[in-house]
């Protein structure tokens, strides 16, 4: 019996994960890539429908084991861990990405396992085929749909110094030594540490250096001294954490003279997302971008206010 159950578990983990790998590979190379240039997109259905189907598949192998809800949740958790290991090996995903994706993945696999349990208890084949057919139809429709999402994040701080004093620190700044406050930076996500520029003029090349040594190459496209510094990102690092998931397109610092010796510093970033659903990933993207802004802007504030 023990051997039989072990075999069922192995089949549940292997077949559900092979299914996921197979369907994502088909989707990535035959469907979605036709819409985009950079490494394809990960559509909503790949993070929700596929894991739900994985849960249903695993529930099919567990259907005669009479599992309690706790056992079903535990086994689904293990199934999700197998998926995460496979994603890091075959998709080359970074640790931070996997942390970000895991709530969606675990939630969907567990949901699928419970849907599967309910389906196979009823044993209504027509209904079961309809549910799986509907999910596959959603998957195909979502994959064929052209995904495009761009957003902008804006943050503001007040610097107790006039714009002339702030400007030089906006264009380039010395290395940030302040400890990271944001939890994702603390656990290893690269954070901005330094910005260099080849000159104080329009068209000058700028570099934003991150804690792991990766560099964003930038070009100043608006140079309105003491007012507006806008730079286009010309090259972003090939880091697995961001590659094919997000493109930072443009950054901007606006300085507004408050007329009382202080400056309102506004940081704007424009980005394009390649991971969906946006209600989930854009929440993360906004949070990360905001914390990149704040780390840089607080450093600029500190440098500018130091006499």
């Amino acid at each position, binding site marked *: 019996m023990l051997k039989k159950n072990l075999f069922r578990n192995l089949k549940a983990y292997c077949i559900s994960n092979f299914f996921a790998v197979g369907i994502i590979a088909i989707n990535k190379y035959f469907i979605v890539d036709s819409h985009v240039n950079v490494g394809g997109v990960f559509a909503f259905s790949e993070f929700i429908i596929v894991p739900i189907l994985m849960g249903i598949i695993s529930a099919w192998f567990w259907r005669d084991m009479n599992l*309690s*809800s706790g056992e079903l949740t535990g086994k689904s*958790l293990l199934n999700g861990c197998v998926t995460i290991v496979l994603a890091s090996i075959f998709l080359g995903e970074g640790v931070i990405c996997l942390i970000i994706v895991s709530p969606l993945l675990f*939630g969907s*696999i*567990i*949901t699928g396992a*419970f849907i599967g349990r309910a389906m196979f208890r009823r044993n209504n084949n027509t209904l079961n085929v309809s549910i799986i057919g509907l999910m596959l139809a959603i998957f195909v429709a979502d994959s064929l749909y052209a995904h495009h999402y761009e957003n902008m994040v804006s943050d503001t701080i007040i610097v107790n110094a006039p714009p002339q004093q702030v400007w030089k620190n906006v264009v380039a700044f010395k290395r940030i030594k302040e400890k990271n406050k944001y939890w994702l930076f603390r656990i290893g996500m690269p954070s901005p540490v330094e910005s260099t520029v080849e000159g104080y003029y329009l068209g000058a090349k700028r570099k934003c250096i991150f804690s792991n040594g990766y560099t964003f190459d930038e070009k100043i496209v608006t140079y309105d001294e003491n007012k507006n510094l806008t730079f286009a990102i010309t090259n972003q690092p090939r880091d697995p954490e961001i590659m094919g998931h997000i493109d930072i397109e443009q950054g901007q610092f606006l300085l507004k003279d408050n007329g009382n010796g202080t400056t309102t510093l506004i940081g704007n970033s424009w980005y394009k997302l390649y991971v969906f659903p946006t209600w989930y990933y854009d929440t993360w993207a906004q949070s990360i971008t905001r914390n990149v802004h704040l780390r840089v802007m607080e450093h600029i504030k500190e440098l500018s206010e130091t006499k």
Partner: protein
Amino acid sequence: MFRFVTRYIGFLKSVPTLGWLFDGLLKLWAFFTQPSLLDWMDEIETEVLKWKRTTSSIHKYGGMQFNYKGKEIGHIHSNGLLNMLLNRSVKAQLMLDDRISDHHTFKNTGWISFYIRTVEDKEYALKLLRKGYEKLIEKDRYADRCLADWGPTGQVNAIAYC
């Protein structure tokens, strides 16, 4: 956490599968923090399914739903929150015990909420579900009686007045 989500981003429950997904995460949370809750939910399900003409299904916003002849008796989200519809007078009576509360979103209705946190709560949840079940049976009987009183030709009136 559940209160925060239902209060501030509860509108997202209308996004297909999102309620289920959230409930899946609640199961995961319970698995680590209070595994016995998942067992109690199984025990409640086993007991309720012994009652005649009851079925269980997945609630549209996630969780385990119990039905009598296809009508909802109540549902339990995977954080142990039992939601069910009683009538206002039964609700007012139960509120005196100070164990149940207004439904977390539908205030001033017959809906109630009850958190299952202990094994005693599980027993109380079963009592509540039984009340809901009996209410539905009574409603069903009343409809049958009404239909019988109006007779076969008066079915339209029976539907209108019962």
